[in-house]
């Protein structure tokens, strides 16, 4: 915004048109002759199920992938975009679905690095002054000197969006930018972007699974289904059901599992005055005490970066607590593999590709991470039974409808939503859990998948499983939890029952007042 764009870059958004774009990965066709047009100063939504090919298509616009066939017209001229640098020159910028911050670098370094036109030698004094000035006008604040690795998912997402504002992008591609923001934050961000669009300063191509955002902010939609074009239309002429039908290729079926009346059992998971530090050694979780009973969903609401990540990491065994206790059925729990197995503790971490997967290993191997060292996947306690691993994967893939070319595909190649499903399948697939800890379990899933996961969680609760649900999606928490706690600055500050909850009061506590 403050940085004058180089003369070659457009001052205003240019019309962008995709003509019959086809993208193949080997013999697999991820996009088949997709056409799409975004006139300048409009807000366009790209919709489709998980794995439909949305991310692949926009990555072709960014020069991250090269389209196998087809043309990209910018301002009416066919252009070849060979790398994200070229895209930048046309004023195109993108917030990727998976974070693209360099973990070891600070927020400031990440912002500066993203500018392709940075001088060979960086004058940090000047850059910092410039960044501080930019931050004064920024819609949200992030500490410039924090390394990106220490930011929670929501904060990272904010930095990604700040990056595009800092780059003064004219054509902004957003790949599920709000999946880790609270609804209030999401509205704020999209509202701000919408304003820029209305004043003709920006065009937006938004990938989202949330109809609320489509109706709230978008002008036009294009829908993909399994790599094929499946329809387009103006938002004002359409209903959510029509959109859903385009996406699924059939009418929307809702399968909700209703909560059985409270059958709260004995205490299962108990945290007593738990403290944990961030990587930097600053306390992140400050004396959290809570109890989750069997057959109960306890929700934890909060703005990302208030200690949820560290709390879940302690329960996952990724981080050691500095003091306090974690007890399961009255016994101390240190989250070792043996203990997790004995107590049947399962966990859906946030950013599953990073926290719950080995990206280079296959889908089948990732799905076996919990159980590969036990019969039937291991014979005679030492020989891995590849057939059993594959069989398990084949079954899970169909039960959880994970879209993958084969069980042998590296999990890192799956679409964002399908990675999530694969991890879900591993954690919920055995159906034997006693305790389930879930952090943002629906991050990036399409509406059908969200419904099915919510159903799975409710079903587990009805079966008597103790569920701790940490989420930044308030609607999700209100729908699923029996009790709702609010975390702010590492402390639990408020407790309520969803039926009696007042969103305003919750928001108030989340904001730390």
């Amino acid at each position: 915004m403050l940085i004058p764009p180089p003369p070659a870059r457009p001052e205003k958004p240019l019309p962008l048109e995709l003509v019959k774009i086809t993208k193949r990965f080997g013999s697999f066709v991820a996009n088949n002759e997709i056409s799409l047009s975004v006139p300048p100063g409009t807000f366009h939504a790209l919709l489709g199920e998980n794995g439909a090919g949305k991310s692949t298509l926009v990555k072709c616009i960014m020069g991250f992938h090269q389209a196998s066939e087809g043309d990209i017209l910018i301002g009416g001229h066919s252009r070849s975009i060979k790398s994200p640098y070229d895209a930048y020159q046309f004023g195109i910028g993108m917030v990727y679905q998976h974070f693209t911050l360099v973990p070891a670098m600070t927020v400031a370094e990440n912002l500066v690095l993203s500018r392709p036109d940075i001088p060979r030698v960086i004058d940090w004094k000047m850059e910092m002054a410039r960044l501080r000035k930019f931050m004064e006008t920024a819609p949200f604040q992030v500490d410039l000197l924090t390394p990106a690795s220490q930011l929670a998912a929501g904060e990272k997402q904010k930095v990604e969006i700040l990056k595009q504002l800092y780059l003064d992008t004219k054509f902004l591609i957003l790949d599920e930018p709000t999946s880790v923001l609270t609804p209030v934050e999401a509205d704020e961000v999209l509202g701000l972007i919408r304003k820029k669009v209305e004043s003709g300063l920006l065009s937006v191509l938004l990938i989202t699974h949330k109809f609320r955002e489509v109706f709230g902010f978008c002008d036009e939609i294009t829908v993909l289904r399994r790599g094929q074009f499946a329809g387009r239309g103006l938002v004002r002429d359409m209903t959510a059901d029509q959109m859903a039908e385009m996406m699924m290729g059939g009418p929307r079926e809702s399968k909700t599992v209703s909560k059985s009346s409270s059958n709260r059992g004995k205490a299962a998971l108990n945290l007593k005055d738990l403290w944990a530090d961030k990587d930097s050694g600053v306390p992140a979780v400050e004396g959290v005490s809570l109890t989750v009973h069997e057959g109960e969903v306890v929700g934890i609401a909060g703005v990302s970066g208030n200690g949820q990540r560290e709390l879940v990491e302690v329960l996952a065994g990724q981080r050691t607590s500095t003091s306090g206790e974690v007890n399961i059925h009255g016994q101390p729990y240190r989250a070792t593999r043996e203990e997790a197995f004995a107590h049947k503790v399962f966990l859906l971490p946030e950013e599953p590709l990073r926290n719950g997967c080995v990206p280079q290993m296959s889908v089948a191997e990732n799905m076996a991470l919990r159980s590969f060292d036990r019969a039937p996947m291991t014979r005679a306690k030492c020989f891995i039974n590849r057939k059993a691993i594959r069989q398990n994967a084949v079954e899970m893939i169909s039960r959880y409808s994970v879209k993958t070319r084969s069980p042998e595909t590296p999990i890192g190649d799956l679409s964002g939503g399908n990675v999530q499903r694969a991890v879900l399948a591993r954690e919920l697939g055995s159906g034997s859990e006693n305790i389930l800890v879930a952090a943002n379990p629906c991050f990036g899933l399409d509406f059908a998948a969200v419904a099915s996961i919510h159903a799975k969680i409710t079903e587990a609760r009805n079966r008597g499983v103790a569920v701790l649900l940490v989420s930044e999606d308030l609607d999700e928490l209100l729908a699923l939890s029996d009790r709702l706690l609010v975390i702010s600055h590492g402390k639990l500050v408020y407790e309520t029952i969803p039926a009696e909850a007042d969103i305003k009061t919750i928001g108030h506590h989340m904001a730390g007042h």
Partner: protein
Amino acid sequence: MTSESMGWWGVLLGVSAGAVRGGTPFLLVSLGECLTEKSGKINLGLEGTLLMGAMSAYAFSYKTGSPWIGVIAAGIAGALMGAVHAFLVTRPKVNDIAAGIAMLIFGSGLAFFLGKPYIQPSAPQLSPISLGGWSDTAQIQAALKISPIFFLGAGIAFAMNWFFRSTRAGMHVRAVGDSPAAARALGISVERTRILSIVAGSALAGVGGAHLSLFYPGAWTEAISSGQGLMAVALVIFSRWNPVHCLYASLVFGGAQAVGPALQAVGVSTGYYLWNASPYILTLLVMVATCSPKRTLVGAPGALGASS
């Protein structure tokens, strides 16, 4: 005065002189390894590169009569070795460690093969920079005759620190080493950045070899390096990938190497071989002391050694 008459001061002096003299090859190789690893690749072959550098420096100094042409030749020989390693490790599915070990054996073999004719003749040496003029003690004067390569290395250490923080190319190297996916999304060519880092890093290791053959010990023999190239890898780890820390760590290692000989000079010869092993023992101790189950190594490039 002789060493004996200086007593324990003599030991201290000997160790300090050894720190600089013996630390210089560690310094150059560890800076080279640091640059390579910051880009996310490991080069275990720098021991071979060091030997190639030592041999080329000696040969060119002998042929041309100018030791500085020797130093440049060592850098070029190092860069060529680096180019081969870079070519190998940027192929898909090539493991850096395996390629590095192959390069180590290849480099030392090639150096011994090409260096055979230069074992006998004596080549012009690099002239030291003397900082001991103020003293009239011979030992102090001798100890303060410092290799120009040391100053070069020390300068590069600080320059590299600045390079990583305040230049575009340096930030690109860090980005590529920490998160290749993020770097790609930013339009940085991961492969190109890595190739350049490996080549430049190897050139530095080659120059380290010039110090061996043209300054200390100052001859070309097959026993000229005693694993400095390999230990430099460990040195980079506990320098936390920080070039300036590499400088300090190299001095500590160089000093540790000199403890045995310095003690012998004052007549303490018990445990001579044990003292000679002190750099290796130091490596192990520092590794044990600095590892922590709680956090990953601060400064470790996120994608170090990962395939693709």
